[in-house]
């Protein structure tokens, strides 16, 4: 056990640090740590510029092989990058689905030619990908999806509807799970594709979210054509490919973004409570200590998982705990932050950079994080079944052809 760098690691860290300090702004030099209030267009162009800069300097998708636009880094080097980058204010929020989920799936299932075509622009942030999985009737129960795919010759025709598709409105490509055989059992009749979001028959309609923004969408498919070459995995094997995607999603999800221990601590050091600084208050210290332990526990859990990865072990669903813990922590910290600011905490500030905004955005964001990419409840199921080996839930849909399973609309 050694939390210090080896000589090589120290060298790598210095290289990372030098590059970041020349190209990015330290969080502590800024009013707040992210860009909570920036409009989507501005944020996107900023993020694209940043991604291209990373790519051009060889810092994009560290762990990908270099022929696909990555750096071929070791897991430990990723940790070091993450540690150093966390000190800086780094634009993001657009490429995670592509680089974290679609990329790894293409790497496993696409042809060499497709990998050479799609991975580098994904790494560079030139092309953005979205995840077309959830449907109105299939979220937690993803395998209950109904969007239909029919093969004729070499071409598939897609009809149906997806929902909650983050970033569909600015995405160039999407990964899509469909039902190719409704008479097979639920998990057996699925087929997985990627497609061009500009294909005729794809219609994206924004959904207004609780925060007032509209980052996710409904996506309608009307006779959308997909060439068979864009199928990933065998016909009827889509569930397996989807699971690979979801496993990567859980690895890719970092901590919930928003104010964390340090922000809450700073806030408590700068505000009065009961006639003294809030940080002097016992109940404030109690909460801060809990959050510190959670943040630090998650940080080192991630490191331990990386150590397992370096030893060649496949990281299991252990990674699920990150989202449960950080989503709930964010929700608590957001409420705490506003509470500290007393009645003024809920007033929408003029400037997006104002302290209130970070907590107000976290207040809404956390509610979404606890649902997106597997709800808290589903993740607890995954931990109990896949990590601890407890029995699966009793299911009412086992062994039945998909088209005979009871559903909300029936």
């Amino acid at each position, binding site marked *: *056990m*050694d*939390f*210090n*760098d*080896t000589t090589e*690691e120290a060298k790598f860290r210095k290289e990372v640090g030098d590059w970041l300090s020349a190209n990015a702004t330290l969080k502590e030099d800024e009013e707040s740590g992210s860009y909570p209030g920036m409009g989507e267009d501005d944020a996107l162009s900023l993020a694209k510029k940043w991604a291209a800069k990373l790519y051009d300097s060889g810092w994009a998708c560290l762990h990908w092989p270099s022929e696909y636009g990555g750096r071929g880094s070791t897991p*430990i080097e990723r*940790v*070091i990058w993450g540690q150093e980058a966390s000190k800086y204010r780094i634009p993001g929020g657009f490429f995670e689905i592509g680089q974290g989920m679609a990329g790894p799936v293409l790497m496993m299932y696409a042809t060499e030619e497709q990998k050479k075509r799609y991975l580098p622009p994904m790494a560079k942030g030139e092309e953005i990908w979205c995840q077309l999985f959830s449907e109105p009737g299939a979220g937690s129960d993803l395998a209950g999806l109904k969007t239909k795919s029919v093969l004729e010759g070499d071409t598939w025709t897609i009809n149906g509807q997806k929902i909650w598709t983050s970033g569909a409105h600015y995405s160039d490509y999407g990964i899509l799970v469909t039902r190719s055989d409704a008479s097979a059992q639920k998990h057996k009749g699925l087929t997985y594709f990627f497609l061009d979001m500009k294909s005729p028959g794809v219609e994206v309609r924004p959904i207004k979210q609780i925060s007032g923004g509209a980052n996710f969408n409904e996506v309608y498919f009307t006779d959308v054509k997909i060439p068979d070459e864009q199928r990933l995995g065998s016909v009827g094997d889509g569930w397996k490919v989807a699971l690979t995607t979801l496993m990567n999603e859980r690895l890719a999800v970092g901590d919930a973004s928003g104010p964390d221990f340090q922000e809450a*601590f700073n806030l408590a*050091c700068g505000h009065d409570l009961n006639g003294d600084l809030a*940080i002097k208050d*016992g109940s404030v*210290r*109690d909460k*801060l*200590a*809990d959050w*510190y*332990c*959670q943040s*630090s*526990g*998650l*940080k*080192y*859990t991630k*490191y*331990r998982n*990386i*150590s*397992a990865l370096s030893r060649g072990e496949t990281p299991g669903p*252990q990674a699920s*705990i990150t989202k*449960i*813990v950080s989503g709930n922590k964010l929700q608590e910290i957001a409420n705490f932050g506003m509470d500290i600011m007393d009645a003024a905490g809920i007033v929408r500030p003029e400037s997006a950079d104002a302290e209130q905004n970070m907590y107000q955005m976290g207040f809404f964001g956390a509610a979404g994080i606890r649902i997106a990419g597997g709800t808290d*409840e589903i993740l*607890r*199921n995954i*931990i*109990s*079944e896949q*990590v*601890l*080996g*407890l*029995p*699966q*839930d*009793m299911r009412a849909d086992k062994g039945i052809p998909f088209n005979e399973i009871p559903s909300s609309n029936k």
Partner: protein
Amino acid sequence: MNFEFSSDQMLLKDQARKFLESEESVKKAREVLEGEQTYDESLWRSVIEMGWTATTIPEEFDGLGLGYLELCVIAEELGRSLAPTPFSSSVYLATEALISLGSNEQKQSYLPRLATGEIIGTLAHTESTSSPSVENLTCELNGNKLNGTKIAVTDGDIANFAVVSAKEGEKAVLCLVDLSTKGVEITSQNTLDPSRSHASINFKDAEADILGADVDGWIALQEILDRAAVLFAFEQLGGAEACMNMAKEYAMGRFAFGRPIASFQAIKHKIADMYIAVELARSNCYFGAWALSTDAPELPTAAATSRVSASKAFHECSKENIQTHGGMGFTWEFDCHLYYRRCRQLAANIGSQAVWKNKLISSLERANQI
């Protein structure tokens, strides 16, 4: 960087676990709880034979001179198996106090005998139901005479000597007291966890030898407690994980409504939450172990973080383990309560959760000022 114990350390851990299982440590904890003896002497002798009491004692004082990482993995297994021995008092507290503060003469006199288990030590700090502070300490050292009373001293009726906190004038000091010396009166105290012995100790002009003559006793004590906190946290971690596993096993075998209770989500999610608490604690403990073993500047923060999260994990797991067992969990016969009791004992014996949370935030305040 490498965030795991080495394969040698994992082997040691595995051996320790198997050894404690073969010694039927949990059963012995129950026997001590139910019987008259204050600890299990045969288990203690075996622990000594394994060399564990000598782990971190330098070779020049007849110890093994191993690192703290080794001691951490042993601690986890002792916690998992509820070992009813004075190990924590003698090793994490008394031995460590001597290693860090003892004069060469004191080390010569105590450490070799601690290594061989010939003597047992403990820390006597608590005086009342108020959490101790420099201001409220009432034990007094005058010259080499100690007066006052300590209570809830873990292993106080087993130990041969104690490291005692006291006031010398306005300042806090630590001193070594031979517990068989004239003027020392020991009275066993019944506690919630009789699988570990406790006593009150009254000192009347008892002869005491100052420990760490040229240091601030209060600060020195906090440093000792920080180091011990990591080791206690590993015991708590082991206990927490044992409870999680007990809950899991019971839930798999117990049927209700025609199915194993482990298939009810309320139970599954409860056990998933135990797992989360244990994993967070484990990760924090690993960082604590590293900070302890390297004497890193982060030690005070890392120690408090390990302690707070391991206390929390053990609390969660030991109470929800009882819940998972239903009525069986509330019986004397099942082992659930042994862990529930030990959890409370470990949570109390080097300061409460509130104290450690406050230490954690204070250490972060200091770190943020730099």
